């Protein structure tokens, strides 16, 4: 079929479809894809975008998926209704893998028609259009992408003005670039209008469901949270997919955390490696800073010796793990919830860590804010475990609320308080909550001085190898960890009354919500609890006790979270059934539904 004969027999889908765009990495397509996504958003239709990119600067294939959903579902869908194929290397395979009935827009010279007869083809002469609309040949490769935005706007009934607005936002302040790209959108739109006669079955109809919403990625959301949390030391080392958290934070700090005379109320240092990042976080936390780092799995492995020191000698610090597909280099640009185990018990010996699992943009912001309070309250390394899907993809969100709560700087004795007590014992459990009092280096008077060490110590911080001192110390650390139960975020419950349940966490949330709804429509009512932190709180206990069967949905091979549940709830171990997803792609609802149906 040719472009002037789109099949009218396709299912009409309004504000409910997925588009996949195949391009070459480094060709500037990301801007075009974001403009398209934002245009749909500005039309008032809930939208989500997934960039499936290679570990490469330029030349390898990349795919971007945009999902519009009137119902507000934002998870990746396994099926697409429309393909835009710009990459000659993958075009044939993309066609072969396409879902039946898919509308395929492609660069005309690729000549894809005839590969399959159950698809609808729409060849577009991109080179011809770009030559006509863009006078600068060296920009053609980049500008071509904006032409498919114009073509798509026509096909989907997206008002071109919205695309132009989106460009202006995306390329803020770059007048020349805006002008060239707007011309390309108009050229694409005009070409489609003149050459595509039949209406497309996919439509965007203006709605009001995105009113007041923002679009942000999780790394930026967390960066904003850290800035408001008063982070004072950021020690980091670049690693995908965590780098953009630090980079975004640096931008925000420069903008909003300087004094009027231009001095910094923060220190940022790009360390020589992740070991050094962890060391600087601990050094700074020990000396009283709100300190943090950002990393991913391989970085956590490198930091694990220091994290044990931080745990054992009780030093606050915030460790963001924006997880990717491991082990080793793994798939560095793909997502995974594969570091559950390592973050729960990072380091040698007996260690237990407070973990936060943000599940959406607001939580990326709020948990970042809260993590500093928890680190200082419990004097220990805190993990904020995000992943590539949350951290680097664009998500629609309600705007963030200002965190009114003042900072909790924890149990720190100042000079005055130190002078009033009889004896300062750094590791004594004065309040019977496992949390001792600390003093900051440099506090005048000298009464608070103590020696921090990773070796065995008694409650006065003196070196000790006595069995009773060691046992008292590690038992208190365990008590301290469990006393965090009443401080960490409680789980979110969705649905009640069923004797079977789903437990999931983090980036799985959108797919699980959609799966839960779908299972409901199929007559399989199932409750859902979204876990948000370690240690498990009493609400988690209750949920587990109340169910006969619990599907633990997680994005790794070994069911790491299910393992933590079985360990924590041995009497309920038989209830836990793992639903696993670990191919590097973001989780989709249909796979969850299929697996639950097959396992029940």
């Amino acid at each position: 079929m040719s472009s002037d004969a789109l099949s009218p027999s396709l299912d009409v889908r309004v504000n409910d479809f997925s588009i996949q765009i195949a391009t070459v990495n480094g060709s500037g397509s990301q801007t075009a894809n974001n403009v398209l996504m934002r245009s749909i958003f500005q039309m008032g239709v809930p939208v989500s975008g997934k960039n499936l990119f290679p570990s490469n600067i330029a030349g390898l294939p990349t795919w971007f998926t945009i999902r519009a959903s009137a119902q507000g579902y934002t998870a990746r869908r396994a099926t697409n209704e429309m393909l835009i194929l710009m990459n000659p290397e993958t075009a044939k395979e993309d066609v072969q893998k396409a879902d039946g009935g898919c509308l395929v827009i492609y660069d005309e010279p690729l000549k894809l028609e005839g590969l399959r007869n159950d698809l609808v083809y729409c060849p577009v002469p991109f080179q011809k259009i770009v030559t006509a609309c863009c006078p600068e040949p060296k920009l053609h490769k980049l500008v071509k992408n904006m032409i498919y935005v114009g073509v798509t706007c026509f096909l989907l009934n997206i008002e071109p003005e919205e695309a132009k607005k989106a460009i202006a936002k995306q390329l803020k302040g770059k007048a020349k670039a805006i002008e060239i790209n707007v011309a390309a959108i108009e050229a694409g739109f005009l070409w489609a209008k003149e050459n595509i006669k039949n209406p497309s079955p996919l439509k965007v109809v203006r709605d009001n469901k995105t009113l007041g919403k923002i679009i942000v990625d999780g790394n930026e959301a967390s960066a904003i949270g850290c800035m408001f949390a008063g982070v004072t030391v950021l020690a980091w080392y670049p690693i995908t997919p965590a780098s953009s958290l630090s980079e975004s934070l640096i931008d925000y700090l420069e903008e909003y955390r300087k004094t009027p005379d231009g001095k910094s109320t923060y220190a940022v240092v790009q360390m020589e490696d992740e070991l050094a990042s962890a060391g600087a976080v601990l050094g700074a936390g020990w000396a009283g800073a709100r300190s943090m780092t950002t990393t991913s799995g391989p970085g956590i492995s490198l930091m694990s010796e220091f994290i044990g020191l931080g745990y054992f000698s009780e030093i606050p610090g915030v460790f963001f793990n924006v997880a990717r597909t491991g082990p080793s280099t793994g798939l560095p640009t793909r997502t995974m919830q594969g570091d559950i185990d390592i973050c729960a018990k990072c380091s040698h010996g007996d260690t237990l860590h407070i973990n936060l699992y943000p599940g959406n943009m607001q939580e990326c912001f709020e948990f970042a804010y809260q993590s500093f309070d928890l680190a200082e309250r419990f004097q220990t390394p805190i993990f904020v475990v995000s992943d590539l899907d949350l951290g680097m993809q664009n998500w629609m969100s309600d705007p963030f609320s200002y965190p009114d709560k003042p900072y909790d700087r924890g149990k720190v004795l100042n000079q005055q308080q130190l002078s009033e007590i009889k004896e300062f014992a750094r590791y004594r459990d004065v309040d019977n909550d496992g949390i001792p009092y600390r003093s900051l280096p440099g506090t005048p008077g000298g009464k608070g001085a103590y020696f921090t060490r990773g070796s065995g110590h008694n409650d006065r911080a003196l070196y000790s190898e006595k069995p009773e001192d060691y046992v008292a110390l590690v038992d208190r650390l365990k008590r301290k960890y469990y006393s965090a139960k009443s401080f960490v975020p409680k789980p979110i419950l969705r649905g009640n009354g069923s004797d079977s349940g789903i437990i999931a966490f983090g980036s799985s949330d959108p797919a699980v919500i959609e799966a839960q709804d779908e299972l409901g429509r199929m007559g399989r009512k199932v409750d859902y609890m979204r876990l948000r932190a370690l240690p498990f709180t009493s609400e988690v206990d209750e949920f587990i006790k109340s169910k006969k069967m619990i599907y633990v949905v997680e994005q790794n091979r070994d069911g790491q979270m299910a393992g933590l549940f079985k360990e924590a709830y041995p009497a309920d171990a038989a209830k836990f059934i793992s639903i696993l997803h670990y191919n590097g792609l973001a989780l989709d609802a249909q796979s969850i539904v299929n697996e639950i149906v097959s396992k029940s």
Partner: protein
Amino acid sequence: MSNAPTASSVPPSNKLGLTKQDYVGSKSTLCAGCGHDSITAQLINAAWEMNIDATRVAKLSGIGCSSKTPAYFFNQAWGFNAVHGRMPSVATGASMANRNLINIGVSGDGDSMSIGLGQLCHMIRRNVPIVYIIEDNGVYGLTKGQFSATADKGSVLKYGSINSLEPIDPVTLAIELGCGFVARSFSGNPKQMNAILKAAFAYEGTSIIDIVSPCVTFNNHDSSTKSYKNIKDHEMPLHELGFVAFNELENVEIPAGESKTVSFPDGSKVTFRNIHENYDPTDAVAATKLIKESLSKNELLTGLLYIRPGSPDFNKVLNLVDEPLATLDLQALKPSPQVLSEIMESLT
């Protein structure tokens, strides 16, 4: 060697009204005669003489015999015995958090030249304000005598292994990395150590002080190039001092600008080429040349070898506010609700 000052009826006070006793720490648990204790003693002397406020001191160390010593001085200071070789990053963090701290790092040749070489290099590159002492004996003491990266080529271990690799020299490395205060001393030379440490306390930025401090327990056997006997039999390189028994060391005074053979009570001999106390070699190339030439003549060049004052330390480079970051309050750290509204607006 004891940290306690010599007994007298009224111990003298410094300008802070403190006696040397106020600068001591816990009792040393190192081997009797260990050179590290002599360094500790000089740290106490230098700090007392320099009127250092010990409550502002952060004592930082890694792992090893040397790294234990911060427990043996300045009871009123905060100490941090970190992980093996990674103290420089801890110091970097602590320094950024509180720019008023006076940082003293104590490390060893294993800690700084092997496992921690990378961190040391980057700390120097950043010019983190710290007096960084490498207590250098060429062996791992705490794990019972394995070679370190400063061991001399050809030296022999207690159980027969011969070191076939060239040593890494901390001082030429530090100069190469742009360090603005590079010194080498010897734990048997208290006067010189004292002068160097006082100068280091006065210096802003990273000062690297390599102090050769022989291991009396693991490098004193007959087959070691560092044993007393071997030195006696051969004219050994001056930087191979680990063999010397230290129990009876005498104070060594070395005239400036000339070479001198120094005899120890046990008869071992070393030659020092010392530099004038006012010597101010700001030419890194010339300093490196002198050190290397000296080494090739089996001399151990000690003193303040290279100095280049005036480079801004890391906290200045970061343009930090005057108040320590650690004590900034909510007012200073938390932007207003208007800022959040502005950011949210930009994301709509």
